């Protein structure tokens, strides 16, 4: 999607019709709109938001230019409009939104004129309710511009409304976005841009459909079936209640963890216990490493256990193998008889002893019977011989599995000891910090420990709830099977079971798709944020790693590997925000323009130069609304090469004029 141009007619301080053409193309894709404070940059930004989404103008007073209303009578209705031309997937569109306002006087007080009438000195504009016809979207159909039937839907598919703040970005908020207390904003942005709420709604609706099926089927059933349906219904309600609790517990977990991190960061700042905190970091690392190693060995152990029945059977295998060898040595398993020799004999009509064995003779019949016996005998002999070979291999395998299990178990026990020892050292360290003479330190440590315990308890609660949920799901399946058995011949009941199972399967698939999609996209966003952050951040920065956690929390690590988002300066936070915004644009398809209102205010000059060099490469179209101070010197020179269109906003006598410099 690319913006082509915008016209504002009597919109706010833009009196008359004012127009901006946007730069597009692969190289000169930047449009710069320069203007001092109050010149109309934010109004222009609001105009785009308002035109496309009918939002962003709630708190900004009158929309219609007061200059346009000046000569009008009180009670007159005036109009303002914003038109945006854009191109998407080869088609051109024009979005037009108008607003109507009535000119009303403002009472100035008790002053009266000579005739005793009230005297009005000023006026304001009263906005009239919006009508459906106030927004029109025309689209290019076979060379003709025709009205698009569901304009909001099209706009939403091109630039998703719930993620618009990341394409149409207000620079004043840029530094707030990545402040630690704005985690939820980041999380919601990612969820919205990936349309995860839509998938979640689909999952929820499918759950409702399944429950409705149960209700309906219960009505039309009788006896045992009815009881079973009732049990299913109860279990389904139990699952809904568990899900609600799980959601609450997960939220509690996130907030407890956040709070714990906050306390940990506060402790980290205290000089008096710096060495103890460093020691704790080290022990925690050791603890996690030991856990990882233990899990790795346990996984090895589990793999060896899958064929561990061979170990149990080793005694029998060896006994059988010895018995076969003994038989072979004693000649009890004789070598194979050559069937071909007997077959040749049968067609030769004469035995080696000279007797007649022509077809039909007694001798021929006996030899034929002998041949059949030989075939069976040969098969058994072959099987015994193969078995003897196979048992040798199995015995070796059993010994290998036993060795692997021994080794894995030894390592698991060793790591368990390490885990216990490290946990004990951590506990001792906690007591040392808790007993610190400075009351603040002691209190902070107590809070940290309490939050840590709370976190463990919440995790345990979540695990219990998940177990309960799995139990309910298993019980439902058992009851369904029972119903299926009882009502095998009843069409309606069978249909219910089939449809229900199909719905459950769909839900299962949806869950898998959701998890996979969310996880892949999270990794994709993380990679992109990291890539952009590396490009934009000051080269000697100590911040080396950016991570997006499983619950979409953005974290930055310093070169010690410690979380360091708290330590970012305002400028660095802006860089992180920009990395995030650029990633959002990329992940959503990489085909959206980026409109930024005063984005560079607090940036350090090196960051600013990096950004103006890199951002135009990362987005298809960049529209910057900047103050003179924001873009100057080297940054301006770097950007100049990418600027395709440039405008100045001239503010005079309460009105803004758009001019080409």
């Amino acid at each position, binding site marked *: 999607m690319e913006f082509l141009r915008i016209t504002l007619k009597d919109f706010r301080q833009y009196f008359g019709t004012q127009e901006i053409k946007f730069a597009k193309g692969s190289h000169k894709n930047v449009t710069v709109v320069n203007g001092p404070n109050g010149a109309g940059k934010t109004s222009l930004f609001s105009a785009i938001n308002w035109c496309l989404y009918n939002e962003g103008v709630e708190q900004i007073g009158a929309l219609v230019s007061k200059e346009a209303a000046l000569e009008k009578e009180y009670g007159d209705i005036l109009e303002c409009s914003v038109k945006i031309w854009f191109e998407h997937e080869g088609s051109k569109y024009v979005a037009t939104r108008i607003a109507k306002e009535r000119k009303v006087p403002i009472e100035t007080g008790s002053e009266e004129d000579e005739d005793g009438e009230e005297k009005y000195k000023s006026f304001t504009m009263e906005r009239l309710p919006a009508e459906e016809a106030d927004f029109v979207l025309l689209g290019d159909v076979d060379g003709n511009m025709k009205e698009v039937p569901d304009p909001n839907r099209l706009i939403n598919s091109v630039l998703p409304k719930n993620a618009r703040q990341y394409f149409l970005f207000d620079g004043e908020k840029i530094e707030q976005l990545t402040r630690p207390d704005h985690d939820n904003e980041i999380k919601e942005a990612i969820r919205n841009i990936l349309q995860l709420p839509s998938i979640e709604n689909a999952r929820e609706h499918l759950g409702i459909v399944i429950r409705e099926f149960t209700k309906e089927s219960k009505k039309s059933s009788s006896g045992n079936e009815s009881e079973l349906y009732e049990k299913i219904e109860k279990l389904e309600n139990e699952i809904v209640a568990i899900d609600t609790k799980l959601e609450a517990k997960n939220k509690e977990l996130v907030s407890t963890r956040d709070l714990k991190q906050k306390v940990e960061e506060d402790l980290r700042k205290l000089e008096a216990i710096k060495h103890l905190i460093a020691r704790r970091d080290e022990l925690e690392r050791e603890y996690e490493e030991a856990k990882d190693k233990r899990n790795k060995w346990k996984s090895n152990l589990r793999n060896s256990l899958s064929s561990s029945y061979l170990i149990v059977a080793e005694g*029998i295998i060896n006994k059988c193998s010895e018995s076969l060898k003994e038989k072979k040595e004693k000649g009890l398993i004789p070598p194979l008889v050559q069937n071909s020799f007997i077959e040749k004999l049968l067609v030769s009509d004469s035995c080696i002893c000279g007797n007649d064995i022509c077809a039909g003779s007694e001798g021929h019949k006996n030899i034929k019977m002998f041949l059949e016996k030989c075939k069976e005998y040969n098969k058994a002999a072959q099987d015994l011989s193969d078995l003897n070979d196979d048992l040798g291999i199995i015995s070796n395998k059993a010994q290998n599995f036993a060795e692997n299990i021994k080794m894995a178990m030894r390592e698991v026990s060793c790591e368990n000891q390490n885990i216990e020892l490290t946990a004990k050292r951590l506990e001792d360290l906690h007591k040392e910090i808790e007993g610190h003479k400075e009351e603040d330190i002691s209190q902070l440590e107590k809070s940290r420990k309490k939050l840590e315990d709370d976190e463990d308890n919440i995790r345990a609660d979540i695990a219990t709830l998940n177990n309960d949920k799995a139990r309910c799901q298993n019980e439902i399946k058992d009851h369904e099977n029972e119903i299926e058995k009882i009502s095998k011949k009843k069409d309606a009941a069978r249909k219910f079971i089939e449809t229900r199972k199909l719905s459950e399967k769909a839900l299962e698939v949806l869950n898998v798709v959701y998890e996979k999609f969310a996880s892949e996209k999270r990794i994709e966003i993380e990679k992109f944020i990291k890539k952009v952050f590396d490009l934009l951040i000051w080269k000697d920065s100590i911040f080396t790693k950016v991570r997006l956690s499983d619950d979409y929390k953005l974290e930055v690590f310093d070169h010690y590997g410690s979380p360091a988002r708290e330590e970012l300066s305002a400028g660095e936070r802006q860089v992180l925000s920009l990395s995030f915004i650029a990633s959002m644009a990329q992940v959503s398809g990489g085909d959206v323009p980026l409109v930024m209102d005063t984005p560079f205010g607090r940036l350090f000059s090196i960051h600013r130069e990096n950004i103006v060099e890199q951002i135009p490469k990362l987005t298809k179209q960049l529209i910057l609304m900047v103050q003179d101070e924001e873009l100057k010197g080297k940054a301006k020179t770097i950007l100049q090469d990418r600027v395709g269109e440039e405008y100045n906003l001239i503010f005079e006598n309460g009105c803004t004029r758009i001019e080409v410099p």
Partner: protein
Amino acid sequence: MYEQTDWPDRIYIDERHHAKYSELLSKSDDARYPFKTAKEIFMFSMVLGFLKKKEPSPVDKKKEVIMEKYLDSKVDKPLIKALYLMNEGKDDCIIDKKSAILFAQDCANNGFDELYDIVTRGHDMVISLTEYLMENHIEQ
């Protein structure tokens, strides 16, 4: 494609064990659960049942548990043959795959409860089974 064999294509367990099989397999992706397939449980039960040295208990109500094609031809099938051979004592019985499988089913039926007790005696089934093996079958 699986090759055609003279082994029966389905293997059954007693219906009363089915729920417990499912329970042992319900979290086959959980590191605390030792078994990944029903075949592993079947084979382990079979060996334990054989070692009990008493008359195998025949499968009462049959419930299909695995397809023959999942038996490894170089490990599982020779093991079944060996147990059957040891039990019957006659060499030519080795070609009767159908009877060998019936014998294996009866042994598994006989040994399943013991296996279930072994793995569920602790919180972590992997550790429970390992401890049993270390105590009884693996030389230290």
